[in-house]
């Protein structure tokens, strides 16, 4: 890293406490993590370890209870609603285990959604969405609604939606969790491709075979980092 250049993602002493009735659940306990450009990171750990919470905080869907999160050098906790929305829109693309597509909207409409919030005009939206859907191999399925698509196709739509605003970071929460192994492999290859094209990929998984794809594996246990292994090429 060059001196003076802030890291892309920097978490310092991040804590997350949920209140479940009267009980307090510590999902993250003072976690430090730095992720930079061109990285491909798998966050692993058993369920309830806090790995999804970590991903949500990185994706700005959730805010830390305590600690600092710097994204591109800016402190996220100081953002207001509008700025958070803008950052979610432009900086990150989210891929979910359950796809989370709008059911009544076509593949094209789903992919256009982030562009609507980005304020793009109709024509440009259409053009960009079509391009991205082509790159994920769904050129002939654009006008289908989610319930007319297979699981793998739905996840491709979700990936297209995550990519359409050309974000630096792609976040994936168990992206293959609802897919059979073959389709899962296809999706993972798609993510590998994105990584080689320069996107930062951060994925949460509990499957070792999925984590294999990443070059760095962060293992979480009880809200803290248990191990952080960087795989060397070759």
């Amino acid at each position, binding site marked *: 890293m060059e001196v003076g250049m802030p890291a892309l993602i920097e978490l310092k002493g991040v804590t997350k406490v949920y209140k479940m009735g009267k009980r307090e659940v510590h999902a993250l306990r003072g976690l430090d993590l730095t992720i930079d450009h061109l990285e491909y990171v798998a966050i692993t750990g058993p369920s309830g370890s806090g790995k999804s919470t970590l991903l*949500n905080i990185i*994706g700005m*869907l*959730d805010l830390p209870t305590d600690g600092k999160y710097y994204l591109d050098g800016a402190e996220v906790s100081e953002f207001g*609603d*509008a700025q958070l*929305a*803008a950052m*979610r*829109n*432009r900086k990150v693309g*989210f891929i*979910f285990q359950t796809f*989370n*597509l*709008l059911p*009544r*909207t076509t593949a094209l409409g789903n992919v256009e*959604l*982030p562009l*609507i*919030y*980005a*304020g793009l*005009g*109709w024509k440009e939206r259409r053009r960009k969405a079509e391009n991205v859907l082509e790159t994920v191999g769904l050129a002939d399925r654009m006008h289908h609604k989610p319930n007319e698509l297979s699981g793998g196709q739905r996840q491709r739509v979700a990936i297209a*939606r995550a990519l359409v*605003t050309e974000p630096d970071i792609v976040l994936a929460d168990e992206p293959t969790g609802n897919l059979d192994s073959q389709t899962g492999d296809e999706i993972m290859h798609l993510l590998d491709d994105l990584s080689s094209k320069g996107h930062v990929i951060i994925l949460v998984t509990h499957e070792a075979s999925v984590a294999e794809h990443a070059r760095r594996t962060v293992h979480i246990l009880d809200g803290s980092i248990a191990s952080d292994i960087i795989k060397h090429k070759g």
Partner: protein
Amino acid sequence: MYLFIESMRAAFISLKGRFLRTMLTMLSIAVGVATIIAIVSIMAGLDGMVAKEFSRMGTRVLYISRHQWGGEYFRRAPRIGEKEIEALHRVELAEYVVPTRETWGELSRNEKTASGIQIVGTTQDYHLVRVVPVEKGRFFTAYEAERGRSLCILGAEVCKNLFESGEDPINRYIEIERIPFRVIGVIEKQGNMIANMSGLAPDNKVFIPLSASDRMFGRRWGVEIMVSAPSEKLLDETEDECRMMLRASRGLHPGEPDNFGINKQDFMLNQFRKITRVLWIVLVGIAGLSLLVGGVGIMNIMLISVTERTREIGVRKAVGAKRSFILVQFLLEALLVCWLGGIVGAIAGIAFAGIVAAISPLVFVVSGLAVAMGFAFTSATGIFFGMYPAVKAARKPPVEALRFG
């Protein structure tokens, strides 16, 4: 702007997806709007009808009597009579000065009788001041009036009671209070039921020369004098001149109050409007209540919708929707239902008012005010009852929204 269009589109798609629910909610709003528009239109129609009826009294006519309408009855003052008629004839602005005496009595012809008929003793100019178009025959002349000839002109209803439909009443004799009168004219049918009951229309009246009335009923009853101004504009000036002349003729000193009344038809109209204003407020209040019920329905449906679509809200936020976008989207959805209901309700309300006007003497008025009020009320309902669910939707934290369901 593009966002508004997108929100509109999203709202449309969402409403289409819940067709039956949307229709039912819309219906409740439509009923409220229809009620408001129908009530306001019917009330406006009633007002129009009444204004038309009162205008029969003449919008540029002064009624000089012993009674100030809505005020004092000058019991101790001298009766209105010859002296006052003479004084009023000197009023320069007065076009016509027409004394009338109204009494009630029985008319008969052969076996047929008509009782409770208003017998109007007056002069030849009566039909120039009041709306009494003579259908058959003629009104009496100045000469006939002066001589007190036993001639009469019948109102349409009176004529119908005394003569068969094929019979020509002209030059036939009838008896008014047992005294024979020759029919010289019949007045065209004028009013409706309400106008006849209130005595505004001439249908239930019979007109005889004032001097004949004097002879039959005696002068001590006095008369009422109609004075017509040259125009509506000059009515007040004419009134002032009449007052001056009457005060002079009665020798009233400055500072002494009038001991006679000068009346105008707009007093009657205003009196009516005062009464109906209360009715109006009550009815619109009731209609507003039904709109309120519709609004509660909207709120209920929107709350269900927000809960059902928690995940959608999460997705939208995850891909970059601000709170305000979500708010606008849900608010528009509520408004759209209200406007749709408003349009349906407006059509129904206007149609209903039209039907009422068609089968009743009311005037058909599509009140722009009613439509504007309906629109304003529905929009207010949509915003008021849609706001809470929309705020609730907008405030959902994205993680929790995504985890839902």
